[in-house]
């Protein structure tokens, strides 16, 4: 037991220390960041946050953009992936393996290699500078992963459940609504979080599809802050942006932590 706790503490330090460092940096004056001799009480400031929020456009604009984009991608992905995953578990047995192979291949494909092709598409169909349009490639890119997770969840449900619901008179849609959805809720929650995270972090496609500064997403805006001056790196402002950018995710994870843990560990729903 003692040995276990020691490991846990070590792991926590390992993963939390960089974040704490960022948090401290974001409250430290620019001068104190490069000069260790400044006395402790004079090192602290809220200026980085003030700067961020008063710049043009203000930083919360990027937060809002990213939240909206990530939310739209998540909703679109789950709306399409749940019926698709259900269908994938119903196709004839001899088709399932090949289809799964293709889906896994698509999930493992490094999407960065696609960004030029996607840019070409954006040009062709005038999809640039629109958050709504950007949700399309995002959910397309996350679809294979979502399909894998949700198919596994549906296949993990007790056999005969769907048939029993049919005999009870439930139509396809009613079965999805009253039987399938509640039972795969944990898997859906963890899938949704992964899609949300992807959309929140995605850089190359957002960089190329968006150019209007009031539409930028968080990663692109942060890169702009980091590269705003050739002569110095604005560590403080950057750290403050990181902290602000992490808050929505933290809230989300705290809200859904039960479902996420259940979805990741799975197997808790066998009747």
């Amino acid at each position, binding site marked *: 037991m003692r040995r276990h706790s020691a490991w846990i503490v070590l792991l926590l330090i390992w993963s939390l220390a960089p974040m704490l460092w960022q948090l401290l940096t974001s409250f430290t004056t620019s001068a104190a960041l490069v000069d260790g001799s400044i006395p402790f009480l004079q090192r602290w400031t809220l200026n980085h946050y003030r700067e961020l929020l008063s710049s043009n456009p203000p930083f919360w604009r990027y937060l809002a953009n990213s939240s909206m984009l990530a939310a739209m991608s998540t909703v679109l992905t789950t709306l399409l992936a749940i019926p698709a995953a259900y269908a994938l578990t119903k196709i004839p047995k001899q088709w399932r393996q090949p289809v799964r192979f293709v889906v896994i291949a698509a999930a493992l494909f490094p999407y960065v290699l696609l960004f030029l092709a996607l840019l070409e598409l954006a040009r062709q169909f005038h999809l640039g500078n629109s958050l709504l349009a950007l949700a399309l490639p995002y959910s397309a890119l996350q679809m294979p992963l979502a399909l894998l997770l949700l198919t596994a969840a549906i296949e993990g449900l007790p056999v*005969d459940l769907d048939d*029993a619901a049919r005999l009870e*008179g*439930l139509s396809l849609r009613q079965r999805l609504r009253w*039987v399938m959805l509640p039972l795969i809720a944990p898997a859906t929650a963890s899938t949704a979080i992964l899609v949300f995270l992807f959309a929140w972090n995605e850089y190359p496609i957002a960089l190329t599809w968006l150019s209007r500064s009031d539409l930028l997403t968080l990663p692109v805006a942060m890169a702009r802050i980091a590269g705003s001056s050739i002569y110095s790196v604005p560590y403080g402002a950057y750290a403050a942006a990181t902290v602000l950018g992490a808050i929505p995710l933290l809230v989300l994870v705290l809200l859904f932590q039960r479902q996420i843990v259940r979805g990741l560990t799975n197997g808790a*729903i066998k*009747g």
Partner: protein
Amino acid sequence: MTLELRSINKRFGDRDVLRNLDLSVADGECVALLGPSGCGKSTALRLIAGLDDPDQGSISINGENVVAIPAERRRVGMVFQSYALFPHLNVRKNLELGLRIRGSRAAERDERISNILEVLQLQNQAEQLPSQLSGGQRQRVALARALLRDPLVYLLDEPMSNLDAQLREELRPELKRLMIGGSQPVVYVTHDQQEAMALADRIALMRNGRIEQIGTPQELYHRPETVVVAQFIGRPQMNLLKPQNGVMVGIRPEDIRLDQQGVSCRLLSREWHGASQMLLVESERGPLRIVCAGDQTISEQIQVNWERSDEHQFDLDSGRRLSD
């Protein structure tokens, strides 16, 4: 109400699972589909329920061909081997879901559910999840759900195979009271011959997707048409003597009696069951199983005999009964 299957064929891939299956179940009759696992019993039920479609043949309920009617609207009450209760809903909601979807009103639903819970002694479990119930309770919830379906046909797929022997015996009369003997035909799938004999009006013994013989339990017991039927019905299994002149003779263990003038045998082993005992002996006509009274004293060397009229004769090649 009646159920009729006519020349049903079903393949999965290149496997013939059901071949030319004919079955008719009369008003209120209970027919047991009995057979070893993998012989196509569940497949037959799924076809009747509409969960799978037959490749050929017709299925009629009350004279109306139902092959084109989807499972959702076919009105069959099925009890699955796994019970297939909805794990996220408590007992009451498990029963309520179907009623609500089928448009029954709230007051009526409540009344019917509390009635059925009372009949099945599940009042105290109404708010529990299936995972909190015992095997027997889950089974009763599954029965209740099928009863509330107001079905035209009852289909039961090995409904008691997940229960222990004692519980099975306790539930049999209950099952009989609730489902069997109403006006609905009942198809009862089992691989347990004892259960089939206890519950069914007629037994259809299946093998390799075919019905080997169909008849009342008495017919199957007294006049098995093939060796397979003879071996499947009756416990302990029928003895098959060493074939002579292309004829195989079978004799039931309970038809053999001790007789000073009979064939002499050597005792190999002995199982005592209380009221009866089972002996395994070696005779000149091969090993024999014998059932006799539990209080009989048995020595190492015994003589046994049986009536010629109790012998069942089968053709050695085809395994078919030779008429006597």
